[in-house]
């Protein structure tokens, strides 16, 4: 099993701060406060080439810019999955297909798609954290023969907060050697699946660490409990990959705020192994 190698500080580009105007060509309402936007240039092209895990700055031009991970991509589009939490995201949610938005990127590093080749992949996500995970998961499905068993463990607060329902319940479970496990924290009518927090759910599933790499993404508490959970299962920190989030304005390592120690999440990250993070200050 080869070591997981993550590239850092590998994005580059000219005129990084100026957005290009693109169109929204599709919107999926994932939950009451999460929407997925499919974005394309006016010429019908992909706004930029990027790898799974990379970021893009999306702007509702009259309101402001916000950073999102590219949740998926096709030959001629990229997708962002946006949770409504404030000014910019509220404005984005009010837009319809055909609306114009600003896009700049790609920023940040990417998931180690190469060094994970040959491994069984374990994806663990909570809530909107499935967005970055989806980018990697969907890559592994497109390159199915390069990876072993694919296991997804996903939770959200309740049934209505699960994002990418179509993929979760219709698409991914039908992919070869792909296991999708979904739980919610709070039971409700119409939910017959697991009711369980993500960390105990992980343990209950008894996921094998053999030849496996884990990808973990979620809010601060999920991150804490599930990194512990994965360790308990026997995963080494070198084999747990995560993506970090901190407030950012420029996306290119200049505006200052997203540092942990001497690293900038926008440039050196957002993707790190837990082993790499152990060597950094705990300011996240």
């Amino acid at each position: 099993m080869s070591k997981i190698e993550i590239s850092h500080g590998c994005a580059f580009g000219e005129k990084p701060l100026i957005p290009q105007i693109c169109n929204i060509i599709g919107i999926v309402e994932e939950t009451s406060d999460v929407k997925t936007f499919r974005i394309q240039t006016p010429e019908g092209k992909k706004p930029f080439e990027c790898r799974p895990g990379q970021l893009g700055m999306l702007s509702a031009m009259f309101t402001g810019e916000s950073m999102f991970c590219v949740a998926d991509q096709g030959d001629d589009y990229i997708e962002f999955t946006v949770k409504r939490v404030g000014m910019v995201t509220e404005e984005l949610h009010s837009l319809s297909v055909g609306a114009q938005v600003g896009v700049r990127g790609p920023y940040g590093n990417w998931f180690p798609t190469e060094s994970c080749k040959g491994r069984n992949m374990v994806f663990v996500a909570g809530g909107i954290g499935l967005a970055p995970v989806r980018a990697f998961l969907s890559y592994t499905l497109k390159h199915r023969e390069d990876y072993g068993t694919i296991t997804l463990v996903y939770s959200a607060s309740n049934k209505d907060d699960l994002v990418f329902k179509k993929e979760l319940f219709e698409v991914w479970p039908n992919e070869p050697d792909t296991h999708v496990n979904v739980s919610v924290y709070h039971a409700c009518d119409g939910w017959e699946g697991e009711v369980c927090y993500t960390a105990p759910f992980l343990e209950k599933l008894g996921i094998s660490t053999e030849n496996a790499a884990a990808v973990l993404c979620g809010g601060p508490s999920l991150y804490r409990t599930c990194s512990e959970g994965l360790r308990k299962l026997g995963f080494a920190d070198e084999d747990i990959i995560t993506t970090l989030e901190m407030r950012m304005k420029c996306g290119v390592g200049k505006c200052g705020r997203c540092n942990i120690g001497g690293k900038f999440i926008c440039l050196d990250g957002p993707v790190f192994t837990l082993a790499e993070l152990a060597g950094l200050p705990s300011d996240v």
Partner: protein
Amino acid sequence: MILKKENVQNLLDELSKSALVFVPKEVDGVLKFAPFKSADEMTLDIINTTLPPKDLLFPQTQKMYRYGIDADGKMYVDPSDDSAEQVVFGIRTCDMQSIVCMDDVFLTKGFVDEFYQAKRDKLLTVAIGCNKVAETCFCDSMGLDPQNSPTADIQLLEGDDAYSVVAQTEKGEKALESWKPFLSEGSVEVPKIECALKVDMTGVKDKLDRMFDHPIWEELSAKCLACGTCTYVCPTCHCFDISQENKMKDGVRFRCWDSCMFSEYTQMAGDHNPRPTKKERLRNRFMHKLCFFEDRYGKTLCVGCGRCVEKCPVSVDITCLIDQIGEFDV
């Protein structure tokens, strides 16, 4: 070559024909680098301006682009370039070194900041060596020489009635051609000086690497008012926010100075803040200056100008911190 002091006015008049010339002077009671009008108002003999010259390259508020909706309903983005030929005349060693640090930030590591670069390419730096030091100056402890700014395009040293003039870069040499009529042969006597305030940086970075969880941050931050003064007066602080202002069907997106001492700086959704109290913020500021920047760019981000030492209303003092670190056994 020397530049007689009596010729400075004429030289700057000449330079002003093709560039905006900035000199140290008092404007509304604040010493800063401001457009040259006449030699009378200049304070070339001051030790250090209250505000650093960083705004010549990185304005406090900088328009990045206009956007809007045109007559056909199409959205447009129209990048702004307000860069012009600029000369900073009388910059000191500390501030010159701060430009070296800002060059690292804005021009390296994969992305070149287009707005900074446009201004940087058009800036001529003329340094004057210090013959006096303030109580709060400690640049020589930070590895600098108050009378020599090796990266300045032109270096002047002050004698009694003239400055010695040396071009140090290609740009400086080219610029000197237009200075010729105002220069003459000669030499000047320059008094040797030293900073009165000393700190010992030996081992400080190594110790800081191990001091993230040290109680000092709690103690030091107890009196901090989170006013942000230290970051605004610091020549190397470069953090910014991006915002916009709309007018009917168009608007302007701009960036403006921000401060790591403010709580909103890292505030995230769901009430999460990775630096929730003054302790984490102050720790980040000082560790950035003395430790993190070195990890990233191989130099310290404090140039010893002493501005934060002088201006902090409650005397949070980086030199005392450095002394304290020196005494710790960590």
